[in-house]
């Protein structure tokens, strides 16, 4: 599974696509594969703050819950309403099933994240 090279990644298996002062966040293909069939996603409200490294929501499969960790800090501007009724979209295509859009608090935080090649290596080693 190719990991989009214009995305950056975290070791907690989130992806982020930055675009100037804003960014889009989701979970990776590897994450959805580990979770299995996703049944529910718990996302923050528009306007709430997320802090780098802290949990901002959770994703549930039938038998497990995983926290979602913020790759960077920012304010939530949009939430993907599709996921409330069709969480399976994440299983189908995790890299296009975005979860939240934010305005970045500090774009420098992106530098600490993994590029696609490093993330792929990390996933291969973990497996």
């Amino acid at each position: 599974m190719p990991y989009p090279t214009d995305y950056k990644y975290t070791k907690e298996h989130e992806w982020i696509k930055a675009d100037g002062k804003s960014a889009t966040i989701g979970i990776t293909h590897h994450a959805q594969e580990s979770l299995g069939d996703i049944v529910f996603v718990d996302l923050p409200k528009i306007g709430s703050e997320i802090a780098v490294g802290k949990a901002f929501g959770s994703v549930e499969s039938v038998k497990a819950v995983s926290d979602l960790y913020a790759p960077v800090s920012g304010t939530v501007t949009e939430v993907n309403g599709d996921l409330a009724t069709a969480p399976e979209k994440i299983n189908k295509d995790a890299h296009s099933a975005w979860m939240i859009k934010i305005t970045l608090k500090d774009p420098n935080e992106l530098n600490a994240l993994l590029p696609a090649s490093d993330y792929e290596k990390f996933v291969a080693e973990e497996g």
Partner: protein
Amino acid sequence: MRYLPKSPADRKAMLQAIGARSIDDLFAPIPAEYRLGRDLKVPRQMAESEIVDWFRERARENGDSYATFLGAGAYYHYRPVIIDSLISRGEFLTAYTPYQAEISQGTLQSIFEFQTMICELTSMEVANASMYDGSTAAAEAVMMAVRLTGRRSVVIARSLHPEYREVLTTYAHHQNMPLSTCSFGDDARLNLKELEQSITSDTACVLIQSPNFLGTIEDTTAIAEIAHRKGAMLVVSIAEAVSLGIVEPPRKADVIAMEAQSFGVPLGFGGPYCGVIATRDQFVRQMPGRLVGQTTDRTGKRGFVLTLATREQHIRREKATSNICTNQALVALMVNIFMTIYGKVGLKELAKQNLAKTAYAAAQFSKHTKVLFAGASRFNEFVVQTSEDPYAINSRLLGHKIIGGLPLKKFYPELGNAALWCCTELTTRTAIDTAVGLVAESERSVKATKEEVDAQEVER
């Protein structure tokens, strides 16, 4: 020992297979200083007949075949015979929690039916597979409201069952949940003006009971309107499930926390009973307790499974909606069968009989003494106020093999010599007449003594 299916030869063969010299080898991991070198000091092993005799003695010491007028959260109703016939089947009695759905469809389907009927009776959209009892269901429902609103304080009706209130206090103590009380008026209904003032922007919910502890039916619509207008939820506790046969359910409540003991669960000196939480679909993910959902198998056949398990302790651990692990499956099955037996028509008739017996009793008592709170409707409980201490009256009633109403002084001292009386379809007219007769006699004798004393005063 007759429950152990092994012969000495079996044990020997097994030890040999394991490579142990004796059973003591297998207990070697326990440090020697702690190993018990003596018999436990418990009664000696009894034959089955001795066990039955021992408990028969206890049953005799426990006053069997008394007529009872006690209610107050535990109700004496008739239990149709087929309830025990069915729940005693080994496949129900000795089955485990239905985690392996393919071999637990009996339990799962009956819980699904239970959930459905509770919804119909309470007018809610979803119900769980039961909680420990009405008191803990009320506490858990309140905590649900706290999670859902993000607010912390709770307004509690003073007419909520006092022990339910105690339980909530214990639970709330460490959750940083301030509790305040709203009193009742002369009709025993919640004081709406006071309620209006008690609700703040930090109030998560209002908790009431209807019919309340004093037997009176609350105006749940009006209470809901006030609570909702101020952003709080309404949690209604129902202790006498049979009331739902003839009394409108609180359709405007957000969460209903019920005690279903009246539906075929024995009084059994206080437990096990059957709590249930019922609520609206939108709140289901914050509802504690097991839930059974309908689904299909690989061939498309309908089946049932435990679902939304991610709310629960075994997955969420410290983030769970509650730590509850059990549901009261066996008693919920009794409730299920009871509701099925009486059904749409029977539950109404049963409730009407309760209403009739209570109306008769209240009318008879009021000829001789005060029956309080006559201003509002009641179901099957009412408060009788006497000149004499109810303990003394009850003492005399015991001599007639009658258990009188619950004295209320320890819960509501301002009501003086008051007691809570309950009549169900099992209460006979004879018992009522006898009880009324004894109370009448008590009133006459107090009056006579008073007249005598007054006369002596005048003489002086």
